């Protein structure tokens, strides 16, 4: 059963606007969350993370928001750039375990 879900397989956004990618999880024991970006024919690269003790983490144009009560996190990209076009995966981990659980990915297209 999928413990981390990304319900939008794709998203298109105009350059300069905000991109919002969403992720839901079911396991309340998860306490560390990550976003990865993946270009075709490359491995995923780490983008940004958030611990469950926070509800927001920013890194430049990227901000991750965590709503623990709703078991929901989102990635905001502002402003979006054509180079941001990629597949984005969210992942979750419980602090006592080593296994990461990944969502199915959202393909973001930023239109120039």
């Amino acid at each position, binding site marked *: 059963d999928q413990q981390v879900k*990304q319900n939008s*397989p794709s998203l298109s956004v105009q350059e300069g606007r905000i991109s919002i990618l969403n992720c839901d999880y079911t396991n309340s024991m998860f*306490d*560390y969350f*990550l976003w*990865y970006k993946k270009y075709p*024919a*490359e*491995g*995923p*690269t*780490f983008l940004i*993370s958030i*611990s469950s003790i926070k509800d927001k983490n920013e890194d430049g144009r990227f901000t991750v928001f965590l709503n623990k009560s709703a078991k929901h996190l989102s990635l905001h990209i502002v402003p979006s750039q054509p180079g941001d076009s990629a597949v984005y*995966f969210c*992942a979750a*981990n*419980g*602090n*006592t*375990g*080593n*296994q*990461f659980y*990944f*969502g*199915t*990915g959202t393909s973001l297209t930023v239109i120039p």
Partner: protein
Amino acid sequence: DVKVTQSSRYLVKRTGEKVFLECVQDMDHENMFWYRQDPGLGLRLIYFSYDVKMKEKGDIPEGYSVSREKKERFSLILESASTNQTSMYLCASSGAGGAYEQYFGPGTRLTVT
């Protein structure tokens, strides 16, 4: 910079062949992972290892085995390749415990004919 390398970018094998995929990391990470990525299914964990000679099954271990004889190297073995194992295989490593990001290799696109 962490570097995770995989032995091949592209591989074509025949049904029934034994296939070895090698992964090496250079950051002295305790944990290493093998995933496969398929369209619409995301990244699914095959096996992971948290120490030399230690391994844990992931979500889809059937048809696969692994070997970790040295800390920096983690091998994935397809005992008898089948066409449904055609996929992108990704290796990753991370520090011990949960609050560390994983670093991924470039992937191996395996085609079984």
